[in-house]
């Protein structure tokens, strides 16, 4: 039988942990709202950007811009892992990190090298521990990601891709599907897949080559470019990349808060349950002790009477 004092100590300790988890749940709940608003604020920009890129991409051949060209021989991949700075968010961080690690292993087996950009302290720690040195690392951004950071990542990726030191860039992050659910997303952001961009809007053009031929005389006549389409594309593509990365960062930030809220909610519930069980045990032990005591007194009195 555990003694009363020990049970009491455990109940107190769990209650104080519960206080922390409940507070974290409420704080995360408040932050979810802020983060979701930020996504809404950024949506018009990325939508217009995608729309504009579609317009340009329809008129330009893939070979005209190095960022559009798919490379046959992929020798080196750049993986951008977007996670948070802090833990206690359930599987939020480990989902992304484990998936990246798995990719690295699989690619290494195929003889493809992988370099990593780590966003968030958790990613930095994770990769350093595994003797993988991130080429770029960002700490303290998960709470409040800015466009500047997205720009730095995009600039690095574009430069490496153009130089040929990297043949593919993959972005791995948590998409905040709704307030309660996060979905792991892996997106190939370089080379930019114009087919996918175009298909997203107009699923009508079945034959892309055919459509391109037609657009050469029909559509381009109605849409002017200043300067030339190729030049516009050259500026638009890095911007598109920046937008995609920024979107991933804020999406992940919203997901983090939502994940933390869910995790802390269940932690609070678990704590409640344990406290209840322990109180029951505490009372039973206490009652047991009293009963034993009464028995002893009654026994003692009976012994005296005889």
């Amino acid at each position: 039988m555990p003694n009363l004092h020990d049970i009491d100590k455990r109940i107190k300790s769990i209650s104080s942990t519960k206080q922390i988890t409940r507070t974290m749940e409420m704080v995360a709940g408040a932050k979810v709202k802020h983060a979701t608003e930020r996504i809404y604020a950024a949506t018009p920009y990325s939508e217009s950007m995608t729309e504009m890129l579609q317009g340009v991409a329809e008129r330009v051949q893939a070979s005209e811009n190095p960022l559009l060209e798919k490379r046959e021989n992929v020798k080196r991949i750049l993986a951008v892992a977007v996670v948070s700075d802090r833990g206690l968010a359930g599987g939020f961080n480990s989902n992304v990190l484990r998936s990246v690690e798995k990719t690295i292993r699989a690619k290494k087996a195929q003889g493809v090298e992988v370099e990593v950009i780590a966003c968030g302290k958790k990613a930095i720690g994770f990769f350093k521990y595994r003797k993988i040195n991130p080429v770029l690392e960002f700490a303290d951004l998960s709470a409040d990601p800015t466009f500047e950071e997205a720009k730095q990542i995009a600039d690095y990726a574009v430069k490496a891709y153009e130089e040929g030191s990297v043949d593919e860039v993959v972005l791995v992050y948590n998409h905040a599907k709704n307030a309660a659910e996060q979905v792991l997303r892996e997106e190939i952001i370089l080379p930019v897949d114009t087919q996918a961009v175009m298909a997203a809007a107009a699923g009508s053009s079945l034959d892309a080559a055919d459509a391109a031929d037609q657009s050469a005389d029909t559509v381009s006549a109605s849409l002017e470019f200043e300067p030339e389409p190729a030049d516009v594309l050259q500026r638009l593509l890095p911007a598109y990349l920046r937008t995609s990365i920024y979107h991933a960062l804020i999406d992940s930030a919203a997901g983090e808060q939502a994940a933390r809220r869910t995790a802390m909610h269940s932690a609070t519930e678990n704590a409640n349950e344990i406290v209840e069980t322990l109180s029951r045990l505490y009372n039973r032990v206490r009652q047991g002790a009293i009963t034993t005591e009464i028995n002893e007194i009654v026994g003692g009195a009976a012994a005296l009477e005889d």
Partner: protein
Amino acid sequence: MTKFACDIVTPEAKFYSGDVHFVVVPGTEGEMGFLYDHAPVVSTLADGVVRIQEEEGGPHKEFAIEGGYVQVDGKRVIILADKAEESHQA
């Protein structure tokens, strides 16, 4: 004159949105002005000032922008910019 919709959008927020009469943007190859029913254009923008006239003959609103693009389709002008700021002396 007919008015058309004009939006100035940055990654952080929709910066300006409204029905306007006339817009001037700093294109990389010189300033461009748009009225209603302008031919569709996509252009990159230089860092500079966007002037918006909401009413014909009315006052101008000025916005400083950095790293932008403009998309025009006759009934709508969308200005995408990395950064935007309203100028207060207007």
